[in-house]
């Protein structure tokens, strides 16, 4: 009897501790978002004096002003176009490359794979100047295609690593069955490998979409035309050299964060599956 009580008490205590820990982590994750939304409804003056999370007077007009002043309409379309193009590009190239690395043995395949992995170690800012010079020489600077190609390149290493790890573990019998049914190598990749890799692809989509959606330094460097800039650049409108217009910046941030939050919610099921199925660990 004592023993049952002991185990019950232990279970409740451990559960309580785990929940307290999880709730604390959740609060630390959610608090910045709530603070961002709260600040977006204040004025430039009250943001420094009214520290409460629920503002005394809510200024929803900040969202309209941020949208208009930041020119969000055009930038929003640009960001959507860049994100979709880059993510599709990364999925196509990385899945083909990862499948080849996992299934085909060719001279130098390991070396090539390690070269891709080594690229993960190079910080992006370190490659800005060479990229700029290269794009200028190829007449691709200040063009959407130039930016998209750069961003595809940036996302390839991690995506290839994730997908190769998955393809390595994929049962070969499935491919043999497809081959017996008359599938070509490309057909097996399309009809067998890709559908099975959905959870990993979801991780690749979300990670890369997030990276492209939030990127602005490379865009700022290679684009001269305002019409080509992505959404994040619009946010800089509110951040001055000495003065930051916090309410408009926070309203802008809320607007820009929304699509990526929606994407995450939509793909959450696959992401969890992708991570737990060993997408991130060998």
């Amino acid at each position: 009897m004592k023993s049952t009580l002991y185990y019950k008490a232990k279970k409740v205590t451990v559960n309580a501790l785990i929940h307290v820990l999880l709730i604390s982590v959740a609060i630390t994750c959610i608090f910045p978002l709530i603070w961002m939304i709260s600040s977006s409804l204040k004025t430039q003056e009250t943001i420094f004096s009214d520290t409460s999370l629920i503002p005394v007077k809510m200024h929803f007009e900040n969202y309209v002003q941020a949208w208009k002043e930041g020119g969000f309409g055009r930038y929003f379309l640009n960001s959507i176009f860049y994100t979709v193009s880059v993510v599709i590009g990364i999925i196509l190239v990385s899945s083909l490359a990862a499948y080849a690395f996992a299934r085909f043995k060719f001279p130098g395949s390991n070396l090539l794979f390690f070269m891709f992995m080594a690229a993960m170690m190079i910080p992006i800012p370190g490659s800005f100047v060479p990229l700029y010079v290269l794009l200028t020489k190829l007449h691709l600077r200040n063009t959407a295609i130039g930016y998209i190609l750069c961003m595809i390149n940036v996302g390839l290493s991690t995506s290839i690593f994730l997908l190769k790890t998955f393809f390595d573990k994929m049962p070969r019998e499935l491919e043999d069955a497809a081959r017996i049914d008359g599938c070509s190598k490309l057909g097996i990749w399309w009809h067998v490998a890709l559908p099975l890799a959905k959870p990993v692809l979801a991780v690749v989509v979300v990670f890369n979409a997030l990276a492209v959606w939030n990127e602005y330094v490379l865009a700022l460097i290679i684009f001269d035309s305002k019409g080509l800039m992505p959404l994040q650049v619009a946010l800089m409108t509110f951040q001055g050299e000495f003065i930051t217009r916090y309410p408009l910046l926070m309203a802008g941030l809320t607007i820009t964060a929304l699509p990526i939050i929606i994407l995450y919610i939509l793909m959450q099921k696959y992401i969890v599956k992708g991570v737990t199925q060993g997408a991130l660990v060998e």
Partner: protein
Amino acid sequence: MRKIYAFGLTLCATLVFFGCALQSKATDKPTITIWHWMTDREPAFTELARRYEAKTGIRVNFELYAPSDAYSQKVRAAAQGATLPDIFGILAEKRDFSSFIKAGHVLDLTPHMDADSGRWRNSLFAKALAVNEFNPGNKYGIEPGVYGVPIDVMAIQMLYNKGLFKKLGLDPEKPPLTFQEFVEIGKKIKAQNMQGMVSGWAEVWMIDCFANNYAFNIMGKDKVIDTIKGKIPYTDPDWVKVLGLFKEMQEAGLLATGVVTMVNKTAEQLFANGKAVFAFNGSWCVNVYKGMNPGLKYGVMMPPRASDKYPMVIWGGAGSSFMVNARSKNKEEAVRFLQWLTDKEQQAYLAETTNNLPANKESLSKVSEILNEFVRNMDNTTHPNVWGVSEFPAVIEAFDKGIQSIIIKEKTPEQIAAEVQKIKAREQAKKR
């Protein structure tokens, strides 16, 4: 399989279509392109560009790239790719500025400055121009001349809250003139449990600035320069005295809690909300405080002098400057535009709309009273960029971090002086 090919083709077609559609459109109009990082001044620049086009028919395209560190990367990349615009700014030390000049990216503006008996040169604050000037025999090996145009000026001074002065029983129109008076106020601040001076001393360059003001006041410019040249050690009693001022301020209660880990944005917020009696900040703060608390009543003062031997000097000079691309096909038009931009009327407009100090001496009439208080001490400004010598970065770091240690009572001024001198000797030995 057909599906795969169709998908691939559609994707390629979409990329090409949108890629081309999003490409910038070329225009036949003559256009001067200017790259800048000054988000706050963007609307004023746009308006001035509109006025210039209406006057001359030449289109001026101000392109904003912020924040400033991303802007700097863009300028460096563009310099390597030889795609710099007609006019741009260089956000760097004089050493980097000189490398841009050596690489042939920056036009020497001296002939334009000196034309018409120096009309352009004389219209600008000499101290502001000096930051963009290279003197004969400069250590960078640059042909003497003026290589940039200041569009505004700045000065870093002390500010005091008039309301809190009243609460302390002080005359709000009489800020302390001597260090002793300053210390006495510190005692009152401590007694009333108020916060003393706030500043962005976590960004160590502001400590360096404050300490240098007192170094010039206590030992004079020549001795400071001689120290940098290695002729005077940091263990000299005058340097120990400079370091000792920080200990004295801390003990008197003149420094706000946590000042050594305070970033300037926090310091501005505290002062704007009336939570600190003094602040040490640049003239840009006028606009910042106006945004944070338009009703704030404050005054500008020189750091109270610690010695009568030499005048008190503050850091100041050019705020932001523009350079003309020496390889630009529009360089003559670019120079003419900069002449127009720094003319009296345009400078007055910029000062009025952006609350920055104008670079043109004749545009001060439209400047607010508080900004005029900053201007009054422009003659007492200096800047490391105009000293002609520069200290080793490791020595500056040791000096500034040492001051932080003194404030937190970790080390004594004498200990810091000895440590800094040791690093100086090490750096000198490395150079040899």
